[in-house]
């Protein structure tokens, strides 16, 4: 076991560090968010600067503008960005999840057209998968894509929890192309220009009052022929690729969320009485232990990834640990520092953000189902939707509600 960099990785790290020393002054102070056009522009410029230096798409193949390096190099970049106190790229979702999906399933034309501007932040992407009635059961989406006379498509429906939609150029959209097939079989993935006629984007405010997400409405939106990513009615496999890269992104950056034991310790240690209180110590020790475990589980995961193994659904347990430990930390810090903590600032943001994060990327309950079945091999839940055409399924659901 060795947590030190190999000589090659150490050399790469000093190269990244040296570049950051020279360029960090160009970084925006915070992440760009939707209601702050200036912040987004600054963050976009920062991504472009990083991309020109070769620090975006580190693991992407060279033929698509990436560096063709391994996941450990990506982690080194993330770590050095964090150490320098500067944000990473603007389009984490595009570069981390959607770009790799296009590389895996897209046509040559799509790769040619979309990947380079995505890498440089010139065109930001958003993920249009979840719907108000389909989250955990993603294959139950209802947004429809109907073939047009010219071979293109018409999209109608609603998506939700869409990060970055306000300033995205494109979205990767999962829609139903054949409702007479069982629900996983009638789906197709599309590229959608977000400025197309009929696309409406509405901010979705969260507990904090900040619009962290959007709702996106599609009203008979026209797509050009060739907008499909992967085969028609083969969208589920494409979506699974995206979700796999999501796990990879989370696994490689489990500390990227900032839920670290030392950060929470600083807040508590600022009050010496709290730091000596048995109850506070017990509560802090419990959550700190979980976060330490998470850090070293991350190293195990990275080792596996660097040896070419793909993390399985058990990587999702890391998210359960991170979110619950952070919730405990927020509660404890507010207990120690008092009600003012809830008003504004770092801990108020954390406390308000976490209840939503608990469901993001799969609720804790659905994660535990998946892991119980795929990892422990426990028998599946009885399913009432297997092999039934989606259209009949919907009718059945309506009947049940009425009965």
């Amino acid at each position, binding site marked *: *076991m*060795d*947590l*030190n*960099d*190999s000589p090659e*990785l150490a050399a790469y790290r000093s190269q990244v560090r040296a570049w950051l020393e020279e360029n960090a002054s160009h970084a925006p102070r915070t992440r760009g968010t939707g209601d702050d056009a200036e912040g987004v522009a600054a963050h976009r410029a920062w991504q472009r600067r990083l991309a020109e230096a070769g620090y975006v798409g580190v693991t992407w193949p060279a033929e698509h503008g990436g560096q063709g390096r391994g996941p*450990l190099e990506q982690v080194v970049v993330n770590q050095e960005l964090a150490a320098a106190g500067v944000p990473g790229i603007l389009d984490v979702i595009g570069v981390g999840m959607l770009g790799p999906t296009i590389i895996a399933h897209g046509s040559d034309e799509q790769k040619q057209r979309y990947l380079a501007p995505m890498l440089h932040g010139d065109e930001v992407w958003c993920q249009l998968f979840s719907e108000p009635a389909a989250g955990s059961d993603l294959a139950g989406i209802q947004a429809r894509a109907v073939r047009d006379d010219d071979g293109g498509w018409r999209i109608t429906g609603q998506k939700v929890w869409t990060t970055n939609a306000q300033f995205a150029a494109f979205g990767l959209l999962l829609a139903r192309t054949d409702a007479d097939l069982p629900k996983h079989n009638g789906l197709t993935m599309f590229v959608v220009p977000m400025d197309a006629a009929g696309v409406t984007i509405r901010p979705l405010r969260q507990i904090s009052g900040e619009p962290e997400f959007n709702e996106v409405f599609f009203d008979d939106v026209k797509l050009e022929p060739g907008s499909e990513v992967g085969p028609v009615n083969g969208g589920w496999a494409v979506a699974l690729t995206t979700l796999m890269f999501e796990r990879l992104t989370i696994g490689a950056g489990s500390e990227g969320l900032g839920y670290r*034991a*030392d950060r929470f*310790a*600083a807040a*508590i*240690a600022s009050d*010496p009485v709290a*730091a*000596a209180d*048995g109850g*506070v*110590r*017990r509560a*802090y*020790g*419990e959550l*700190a*232990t*979980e976060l*330490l*475990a*998470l*850090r*070293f*589980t991350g*190293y*195990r995961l*990275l*080792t*596996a990834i*660097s040896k070419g193994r793909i993390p399985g659904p*058990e990587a999702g*347990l890391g998210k*359960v*640990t991170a979110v619950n430990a952070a919730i405990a930390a927020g509660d404890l810090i507010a207990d120690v520092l008092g009600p003012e903590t809830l008003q504004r600032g770092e801990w108020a943001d954390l406390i308000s953000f976490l209840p939503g994060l608990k469901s993001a990327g799969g609720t804790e*309950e659905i994660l*535990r*189902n998946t*892991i*119980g*079945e795929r*990892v*422990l*091999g*426990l*028998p*599946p*839940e*009885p399913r009432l939707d297997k092999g039934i055409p989606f259209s009949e399924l919907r009718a059945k659901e309506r009947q049940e509600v009425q009965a």
Partner: protein
Amino acid sequence: MNFELSDEQVFLREAARDALGRVRTVEAARDALEGAELPDLWPTTAQAGWTGLLISEDHGGAGLGAIDAMLVAAECGRVLAGVALLGHLPATALLDADGGEGQLLARLASGAARAAFVPARPGDDRDPAWTAEPRRGIRRAPAPAVTVGGSDGGATVSGTVAWVPDAPGADVLVVAAVESDGRPRAVAIDGGAAGVAIEAASAYDATRPLGHVTLDGARGRLLDVDGEQLAAAWFLAQALIAAESLGAVEEALRRSVEYAKERFTFGRPIGSYQAIKHALTEVLRRQENTRSPLYYAGWAHGSKPDEFALAASAARSCAGGALDYAARELISVHGGIGATWEHDAPLFFRRAQLSRRLLGGTGDATDRVAAELLGQAAA
């Protein structure tokens, strides 16, 4: 970066699993509760070379690291084997660091002699004093007192330490004691020396031999180790009990999953119900959250000694919680039958209940994690 076991370590683990698999240790754990003798696993231990695991090759041992010791401990824990390594390994690590008695080390390495660590807990920010396990109650006892000197240049130790793992029958005791100025010292005392009394303590988990050790002017040899090395022995014991627990958790989970697949209610296997599935996933989560800090502790022991206290305490804290949870879940999944004498589940439960309260207790390890991290943050 490489944060997984080497091929040699995987081999060591598999070999340990094979060696222990030849004895019906779980049945023996139940029989021992009714007064039967535990199977003597010391010859197995010696033959496998575990007795000399932490003794350097120069002294006749295998010269392996803490992580290797943990892997063996995990296999012992998996089958509830009563192997006296929890006492022996930290004691031999100290004797090896001292290096003064080549012959004794060779005998300990070969298994011809057995050592037991009589531990003291290193002080922390709230109480700098080294303390020992009390016989009962929440207040810790003072660590045994040592006075250095005398005609043979040795040391005299007096004091009592309760619930010492593997103390009964040990050939040599390595005692953590403090001088009058509070300086911690390690003293090797012959198990049969004058002034040594070891009262066997009957335990809820009969696979774990424990003793209350009373030293009354017992003479021994001062070891050439410093306070940090002595503290590391305490934390090594924490890591080993954590590793034992990890093995027991893995076995409890395996048994729970197996049963959840074959027991049916309302026409469905019970493992298909979310209530069961989510609970067993929680065991898995805690199991993996124990493995990671254990690896961390194994790595830190050799490569980052400054972090060993934190790593070993984190491992102990996670492991304790994991075993508590896994053992109760093992019973719950089995329903009423899981709480009967004939069933194996109560043996894992007994292991969990006792382990949680030894060597300072799981809660103390959690507090140590807080002490280490809050201390760093305040600095």
